[in-house]
C-alpha cells in the first residue's frame, strides 16, 4: 500500500514538473531571446543564456524597435484604445445591466438572449461590413473607429458581469432610498455602484484587456503607423515588405513589456473570470 502511494506521488510530481516546463518553455524562450545581442541572435543552434546579458533591449525599444517606431508611441496608442474601450463599454453596459437587474418589462428575456448570442459572434465574420460602416462615417484610421467596435464586442460580457453583481445588492436598499425620495440616478450612483464596485472593477479590467489585446480591428481600420497599438505595431515589423532581417531580440523585449500590464490586471480578476465562465467569457 505505502509503496503504491509513493509511486503515485512520484508519478504526480513528475507530471506536474513536466507540465510546468512545457508551459514555461515558450516564455523562457522569449525572455532568453529578449536578452540577446544582435550577433547572438543568429547563432545556430540557439543558445539559452546569452554570453553577455543585454538588458539594453528593454531600454532602447522605447525609442525605436528595429527601424520602426518606438514602443512609447505604440504604448500610448494601446493605452488610448484600451481606456476608450473601458469608458464606452462601461457607459453602455451600466445602464443595461441596471435595467435588466431592477426592472421587469416586456422584452427583458429577449434582450438577455440578444446579449448572450451577440457575444458568440467573432468580429472577423463581420469585418467587411464593419469596415464599410467606418468608411461611411469617415472613422477609418481613427482611434474612435476602433474603440466603437472593441466596446461593442466587449459589452455583452461586461453587461453579464455587472448584472450578476448588481443583483447581489439587496433591493431593500433601493426601496428605502426611493421612499426617501431619491431619484433613480442617485440610487444607481450612490447605492448600487458603490456596493458593487467589485463587479465594476472586473468589468473595467475586462474591457481594458479586450482593448489592449485587440489585433484584428486595429489591423483592419488603422493605416498610419503612428496610430497603431503595440499588437499591430510588432506585426508590421515582421511582415512589412522589404524587411530582410527582423530584430527578434527587440521584438521579444517589446512583447514582454507590452504583456506585463495586461498580466497584472488579469491576475486581479482571474477568480471572477473563472466563476463567470459558464455564460461564456470568451477572450481572444
Amino acid at each position, binding site marked *: 500500500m505505502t509503496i503504491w502511494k509513493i509511486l503515485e506521488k512520484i508519478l504526480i510530481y513528475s*507530471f506536474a514538473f513536466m507540465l510546468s516546463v512545457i508551459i514555461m*518553455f515558450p*516564455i523562457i524562450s*522569449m525572455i532568453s531571446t529578449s536578452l540577446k545581442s544582435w550577433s547572438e541572435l543568429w547563432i545556430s543552434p540557439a543558445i539559452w543564456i546569452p554570453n553577455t546579458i543585454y538588458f539594453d533591449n528593454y531600454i532602447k525599444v522605447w525609442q525605436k524597435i528595429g527601424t520602426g517606431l518606438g514602443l512609447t508611441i505604440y504604448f500610448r496608442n494601446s493605452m488610448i484604445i484600451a481606456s476608450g474601450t473601458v469608458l464606452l463599454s462601461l457607459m453602455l453596459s451600466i445602464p443595461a445591466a441596471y435595467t435588466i437587474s431592477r426592472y421587469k418589462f416586456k422584452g427583458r428575456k429577449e*434582450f438577455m438572449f440578444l446579449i448572450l448570442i451577440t457575444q458568440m459572434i467573432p468580429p472577423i465574420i463581420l469585418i467587411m*461590413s464593419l469596415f464599410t460602416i467606418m468608411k461611411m462615417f469617415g472613422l477609418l484610421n481613427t482611434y474612435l473607429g476602433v474603440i466603437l467596435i472593441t466596446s461593442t464586442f466587449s459589452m455583452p460580457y461586461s453587461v453579464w458581469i455587472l448584472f450578476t453583481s448588481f443583483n447581489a445588492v439587496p433591493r*431593500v436598499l433601493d426601496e428605502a432610498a426611493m421612499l426617501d425620495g431619491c431619484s433613480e440616478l442617485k440610487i444607481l450612483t450612490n447605492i448600487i455602484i458603490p456596493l458593487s464596485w467589485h463587479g465594476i472593477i472586473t468589468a473595467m479590467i475586462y474591457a481594458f484587456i479586450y482593448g489592449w489585446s485587440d489585433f484584428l480591428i486595429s489591423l483592419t481600420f488603422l493605416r498610419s503607423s503612428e496610430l497603431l497599438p503595440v499588437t499591430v505595431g510588432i506585426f508590421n515589423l515582421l511582415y512589412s515588405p522589404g524587411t530582410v532581417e527582423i530584430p527578434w531580440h527587440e521584438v521579444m523585449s517589446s512583447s514582454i513589456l507590452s504583456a506585463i500590464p495586461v498580466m497584472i490586471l488579469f491576475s486581479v480578476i482571474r477568480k471572477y473570470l473563472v466563476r463567470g465562465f459558464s455564460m461564456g467569457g470568451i477572450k481572444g
Partner: protein
Amino acid sequence: MDKVKRSLKTFSLRPYFFLLPSIFFLFLFIIYPIFEIIYSSFFYITPKGEERFVGLQNYLDLFSDSVFVWSLKNTILWVILRVTLMLILGLGIALLINYPFRGNSIIETILIIPWAMPLAIVCYGWKWMLNGPYGHFNSLLNILGLISQPFPEWLGSPLGAFLGVLGVSVYTGLPFTTLIYLSGLKSIPESLYEAALIDGASIWQRFRYITLPQLRAVVITIILLETIISFGSFTTVWIVTLGGPLHYTELIVTYLYKVAFEFFNWAKAFTIATIGFIILFIFSFIYISKTWRE
C-alpha cells in the same frame, strides 16, 4: 420589494430608454452587419461598383474555387483536432491540479500565464521559437538528440506549419478549458467518492463511473465553446503563418480576410462570411439554448 416593483411599473417606458444605447450599438455593429453580409452575398459587384442580383451564383462559384474548398476542409480538420486535444489535455491537467498534493496551486498559477498574455504576443514568441536554424525549439530537440543540422524549418513545411499553429492555439486555449473542467470537478459531491471507497472501488472505477458521468455537462459545454472559438482562430493563424505555406494552414476566416482585403473580391468575401456565420450561428444557438435552460 413589491413596493419598488409597483412604483417602478408606473414608468413603463423607462427600461427601454435605459437600454437604448446598448441596443443601438449591438444593432449597428453586430445585427446590421450580419444582415448586410447575408444580403450582399446574393449580389455581384461590377467593376464600376454597381450591385446586380445574381441569386445563388456566388455560392456556386465559391464551391468551384478549389482554395475555398481546401480551406473549408482544413477548418473542419482544425476544429476537430483542436477540440479533441483540448478535451483530452484539459481533463488530464484538471485531474492533476485537482489531486491533493503540495504544489497544485503553483501549477494552477503557471497554467494561467499563457491565457493572461495578449494572444498576439504569445504568437510572436512562438513564431521565433519555431524558427528553423535559430529557434529554441530545435535547439532543445538537438540537445535531446532528436534532430541534427540542418534543422527542419517547421513553419515552412505543410505538416510542420499546421502542427505549429495548432500548438500555439492549444497552448493559449488550454488554461480556459482546464479551468472549466476544474470547476466541474469541484462541483462533484465528495459523498459519491466516499461511498465508492467503502464499496472498494479502484481509482479507475471511481474515474469511470463517477467522475466521467458527472462531467457530462461540462464536456458538452467545452465541445460547443471550443468549436466556436476554434472556428474563429484568425489572430493565431494570421500572425504565425498568414495561412501559408501556400494554403496549408488556411482557415476560412483567414481566406475571408485575404479575399476581402488583398484580392478585393468583396462579393466572394461576403459569401464566405455568410457561410462562416451560418456555421457559427448553429453552434452558438445550441450553446446558448443549453446555458439558457440552466
